[in-house]
């Protein structure tokens, strides 16, 4: 990295995501091949201190959990078919409160769909990953710079909150090569999981006001570690549904929402007097930025909100949107998953979407929708 604008590199998002995650503190990658996540797998073989090829995606998540229990911070990269297999194990890791990042590279579904075609169709799935209405913190990079910043944030959040975190991206973000000025990339802090340092008995799920329990790896011989994916009390003992155990489970959601402001990231580019707001995330954010640039060049007033922290859904997004008469949500899926997440099935007045499947949404479609008489 050099200061000055001449240091343009020709790179893809996978490279930045991998480097960022490792610098942020990830030390293990466990992978099962799947297009379009294969570049992340390839880079992992070169970059992580430990890289393992698992025989399937259930095993992937189980091995990751095992590594995390032993004190490591693991990462994987997959696409919908693999994520679907991981589902129960992600629930397990969330109950164990293990830090890990799952990079979910979206491609065209349903089912095997088209492996080589990008999409943004898995937000609803990620939103519903945990049974019972609990949330996995979920981030999405909207350009190459975010592949750097947001990936590190995702890993730091996984470590700080002791939870699986999803980095939701898509084919073109991780595979398209782009001339990128990397002279301004921020330094990334390497974080470690906070371990128990008391001299009294270690209680695995006991928390202070942070709501995040101290960790103890099973590698040490001083304190018994007891982890269970079933409903459990603070000591880690399985309980049917004692008040203490239910409180402990509810804490999983409370810890994630309590700290949201510490990891809530979005770009808000507001124009004075604008009545239109374009909302987007991930790969479609770039088309949205271009559309907003074109609209402004034509003298139109328009604002732009690019969500980078997708889950938990921030109230801020809705509050911002409610300042506008017209809201256009841009995303590459059939029915508007982000739109429904923000505004519910009922929607609101002045709300519409630009949606597409099997192709990238182009700036001109967004321009047209913003200009459309509503």
């Amino acid at each position: 990295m050099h200061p000055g604008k001449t240091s343009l590199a020709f790179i893809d998002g996978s490279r930045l995501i991998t480097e960022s995650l490792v610098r942020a503190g990830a030390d293990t990658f466990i992978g099962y091949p799947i297009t379009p996540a294969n570049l992340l797998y390839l880079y992992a073989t070169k970059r992580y201190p430990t890289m393992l090829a698992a025989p399937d995606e259930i095993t992937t998540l189980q091995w990751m959990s095992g590594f995390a229990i032993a004190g490591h911070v693991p990462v994987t990269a997959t696409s919908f078919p693999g994520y679907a297999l991981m589902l129960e194990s992600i629930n397990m890791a969330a109950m164990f409160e293990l830090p890990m990042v799952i990079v979910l590279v979206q491609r065209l579904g349903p089912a095997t769909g088209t492996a080589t075609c990008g999409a943004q169709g898995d937000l609803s799935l990620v939103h519903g990953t945990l049974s019972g209405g609990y949330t996995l913190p979920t981030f999405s990079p909207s350009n190459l710079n975010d592949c750097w910043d947001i990936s590190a944030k995702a890993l730091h959040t996984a470590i700080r909150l002791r939870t699986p975190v999803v980095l939701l991206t898509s084919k073109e973000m991780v595979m398209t090569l782009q001339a990128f000025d990397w002279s301004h990339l921020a330094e990334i802090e390497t974080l470690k999981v906070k371990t128990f340092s008391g001299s009294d008995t270690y209680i695995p799920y006991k928390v202070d006001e942070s709501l995040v329990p101290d960790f103890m790896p099973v590698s040490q011989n001083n304190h018994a570690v007891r982890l269970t994916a079933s409903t459990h009390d603070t000591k880690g003992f399985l309980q049917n549904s004692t008040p203490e155990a239910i409180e402990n489970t509810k804490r999983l959601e409370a810890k994630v929402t309590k700290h949201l402001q510490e990891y809530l990231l979005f770009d808000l580019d507001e124009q004075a007097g604008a009545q239109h707001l374009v909302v987007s995330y991930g790969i479609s954010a770039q088309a949205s930025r271009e559309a907003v640039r074109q609209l402004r060049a034509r003298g139109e007033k328009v604002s732009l909100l690019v969500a980078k922290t997708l889950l938990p859904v921030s109230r801020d997004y809705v509050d911002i949107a409610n300042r506008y008469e017209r809201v256009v949500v841009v995303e590459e899926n059939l029915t508007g998953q982000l739109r429904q997440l923000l505004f519910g099935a009922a929607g609101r007045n002045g709300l519409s979407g630009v949606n597409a499947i099997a192709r990238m949404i182009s700036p001109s479609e967004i321009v047209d929708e913003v200009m459309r008489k509503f």
Partner: protein
Amino acid sequence: MNNVKFLTGGQLPFCKGCGHVAVAQNTEKALQKLDFNPLDVVLVTDIGCHGIVDKNFLTHNVHGLHGRSSALAAGISAGLSNPNKKVIVFTGDGGATIGMQHLVGGAHLGFDMTVVVHNNMLYGMTGGQPSEFTPCGFKTPTLPEGSTKSGYDICELMLAAGAAYVERVVGIGDFSDSLARAFSTKGFSLVEVMEICTSYGVKSNPGMKLPKLVEEAGWKVKVFTEAKQRLFQTPQNSNPTSLLSEKLEVEPKYSGAISKPVSIMLSGSAGEGVQLAAEFLARAAMLSGLYATKKGSYPVTVGVGYSAAEVIISHEPILYTGSPVPDILAITSADGLGYARTAAGRMKGGTIYIDQSLDIPQTGAETVVIPFREKVGAQNSSLYSVFYMVGSQHFFPMEALRDIFMANKISQRVSVDIFMQL
């Protein structure tokens, strides 16, 4: 031998007479015989009646999902990479059925761990349904007429998969020596403990005797293999280097001569260098001080069918990397024409460079017919189309493209001169 407690001494959470009791007690005894301390041991338990025994153990305890305990334990073992820690899995025949992949995989890779299969020949926790381990003739509450197929022989399976130690025992009395042999094996070991579920197995098969049943099922009670040498080593990349190598940077040396962003599509066949040609084009643009992006499109199988790439070059940073309507299109094969027909149809201006072997698609663009394939061969046709278009469109000096080409190892095989002749 020590007499350190591994069990709390509290009541075990099983029905009266359940075979799981003996496994817990013999495990404690075997660990004492080997002089382990509780926190040297990580007990990973599955979902099932046998699994809730974790609350009685004073070891580290991890209680995960149904059938996945062996995969979770493999991760713990590989993550610890510590020969002084003992990772033990408790699973049922149900867990072994749904998670068979993890047992085969564990034995195959040689993770340092011991799996104790509590084979009571049915799913106890869910009410006595048959598993894949249920032997022929064995009855369960949901199968009162008795199973008509034989059950898995997990020991033979583990032997074939490469386990270091495999033994089947009938889980009556003292079998702690068997467990101790497994626990002290380096690598993957498995002990199958034959048991009876008093609540469902005994009730459905009155008068049944376990040793006789095991014998009739054809399951040998013996050591199947011992002291095999296969131990998983957790790979360590001792010197991982940054992915942000300066080699990825392209320092401008020439200057570009475009008045607005140009989007270029190359469409040809897989194996004919389309992606490489597109990358050269983009890099040459960067060598000329321009921004560039390159996005590939191809079917799932890499080696057949079309291969297409979209390149955008611009003086300004490029936000949107798609290009639904290219300004310039190069089509070098029939596959490529098939793919690019739609894009060609959308073009209201611009130029299409197309191989002379192909028919001209419907388009509003100017078309230029070139014998790409004939002149340089199919393999180099796409590269040639890039040289040709740069030579005629003058986005930037030809030298830029030439420099990029010469810096690539392909220049050792293919002479650049064949591309420079327009």
